[in-house]
């Protein structure tokens, strides 16, 4: 199998789906001749033409509304929000409208659209190019929310998202784009939305994460194994909504201890829901307080290197939290 980066996997998924299905098209700022600011659509306009690769005006609300309207006509738009930080103008259409198409029409109409959103930090993006926005969509019934960590998952899940008959918010961590590489099959494959994966089996602590942080979690887990402190089971959520509660709870019931890691702000983040689920459905199995290691409650990470480093959870901090939990 060829080794590819996350951005290559994303590009391949879209290209294959556009070749496979005429109803699929991409739209967004700079997706045309520029090939996207992260080059996710590089070469697309040359292959598919201006009609299916639409450089939109700089107007995010309309990108979402127009994608939604096109989906009403049976198309499968892939709308790109250039950076997660600019998603706000879209939410009237995304949270207010797209999420309710099926419910609000008693199942008569649906919105088969994919919204690709590069998110996250650690790239010196400062307050307006680093944000994690998953919690907002995670809380919204009617949306699906996917957040892969590896090239393999990114490709399989993006293809699934494009084929899905619902609005899928597809979150791509910007720092993983070129940093994370892995094997990706050449042939067509699709991964199911809504399934977490145990990326590392273990028995003493359950560590739940997604996106960039998953890789730091795996590193920390290796570290603790090497130190002989704990065998950490690492669960990659992959899909945030619908959440694969079964996989999480099964792991927690086995280990009795739970650490949740995400880069997003801690209060009201996805981690709070994981904790709440476990504190209810796995209560009798818990041997220690449910702990979270997440971004602090400041408006995403600042620009200066020192400040960004201070914000970001990392392998070292995760290992520390695991040690505390192991010792409990």
């Amino acid at each position, binding site marked *: 199998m060829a080794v590819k980066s996350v951005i290559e996997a994303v590009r391949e998924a879209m290209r294959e789906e556009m070749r496979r299905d005429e109803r699929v098209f991409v739209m967004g700022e700079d997706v045309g001749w520029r090939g996207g600011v992260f080059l996710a659509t590089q070469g697309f306009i040359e292959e598919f033409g201006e009609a299916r690769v639409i450089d939109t005006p700089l107007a995010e609300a309309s990108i979402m509304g127009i994608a*939604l309207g096109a989906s009403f006509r049976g198309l499968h738009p892939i709308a790109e929000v250039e950076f997660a930080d600019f998603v706000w103008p879209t939410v009237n259409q995304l949270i*207010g409208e797209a999420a309710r198409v099926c419910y609000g029409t008693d*199942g008569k109409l649906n919105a088969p659209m994919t919204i690709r959103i590069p998110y996250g930090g650690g790239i010196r993006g400062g307050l307006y190019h680093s944000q994690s926005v998953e919690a907002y969509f995670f809380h919204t019934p009617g949306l699906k929310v996917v957040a892969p960590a590896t090239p393999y998952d990114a490709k399989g899940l993006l293809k699934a998202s494009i084929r899905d008959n619902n609005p899928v918010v597809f979150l791509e961590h910007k720092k993983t784009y070129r940093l994370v590489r892995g094997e990706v099959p050449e042939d067509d494959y699709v991964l199911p939305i809504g399934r977490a994966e145990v990326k590392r089996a273990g028995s003493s602590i359950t560590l739940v994460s997604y996106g960039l942080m998953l890789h730091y979690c795996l590193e920390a887990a290796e570290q603790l194994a090497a130190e002989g402190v704990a065998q950490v089971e690492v669960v990659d959520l992959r899909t945030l909504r619908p959440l694969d509660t079964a996989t999480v709870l099964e792991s927690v019931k086995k280990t009795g201890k739970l650490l949740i890691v995400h880069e997003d702000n801690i209060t009201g983040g996805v981690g709070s829901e994981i904790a709440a689920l476990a504190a209810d459905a796995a209560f009798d199995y818990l041997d220690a307080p449910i702990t979270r290691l997440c971004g602090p409650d400041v408006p995403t990470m600042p620009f200066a290197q020192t400040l960004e480093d201070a914000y970001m959870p990392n392998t070292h901090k995760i290992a520390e939290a695991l040690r505390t939990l192991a010792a409990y």
Partner: protein
Amino acid sequence: MTQAGTQTTDGIAGGIAGPLEVDGIDMSRRLPQGVAPEDLVDIYRRMVLVRALDERIWMMNRQGKVPIAASGQGHEAAQMGSLLAAEKDGNCFFFPYYRDLSIKMSGLTPTQVMLSFMGKAGDAYSNARQFPLQGADLAHNIIQLSNVVAASLTQSVGYALGCRMLGDERVTLVYFGDGASSQGETHEAMNFAGVHRLPVVFICENNGYAISVPQRLQMAIGDVAGRAEGYGFPGLVVDGMDLLHSYEATAEAIAHARREGPVLLEMKVERLMPHTTDDDDSRYRPREEVEAAKLRDPVATLGAYLLAEAFLTEEQEEEIKAQARRAVNEATDAADATPPPDAGEMLKHVYAP
């Protein structure tokens, strides 16, 4: 490029000929090409029915049986005129707004309308999950997902983009109020439609108010239509109290949209009732203004015109009204006897399969 209110596009608004005035509205034009007297009689029949339903719905609200309703009274000529043009065209898709009872009635029986307003099982738009006649009636080419003001504009433009991609010849009509013109999404929708010359007709039913906010606080201009120029397509002011003018303008706009791209029609209308059943317009609207508006009632105007032109006899006109009353009574009884949807429905259809 055409100027709002001053010039015409594709000959729209031509044809005004003589001095026949009905309630102050000039109705003396020749019948537009392709419109027969029977068409107008049929439209009148439907207008009378819509009005009768509209009035009954308001009454039912006062009786506690309809939680909320926005009345279309005063907007009927604009709505019906545009609808007639779209029906004659035969390949149009509609994104109406909450005040467009006339548009949505096109595919429904009076009973279906009543089921919807009373929140009963079998509501054709959302099975009573939503406000009355909100959701979709795909069988009749209608989507109105929400009552979020202006949210449908970008959707309609996207729909038109989809039509273009699929290579069909469909034209999309999207309806909205003067208040909606202020929303950022309205700007974005028109801008995109202009750039891609999409087959969309933007129909602004300007009644001079957004709930209580008068036009002078909504915009610093007289005509919304004038904004079309800034998007590179024509905008026209239409007398929306005049069925024929509304018809002609829309017919031309549909043809233009299919051929060359978007058109903005600003239909000047009067809101004859408070904003909704929840509103008390006496707080902010002079009584004389409302009374004056009622003298220009578009249903009465069309009726008088048909009588004057002898397209209809007085007996026929009476029978149309009697029929409408009977239909509304039957619909009310039928809907009243229908239960609301089963509680178990609440959890269904969050996601499509």
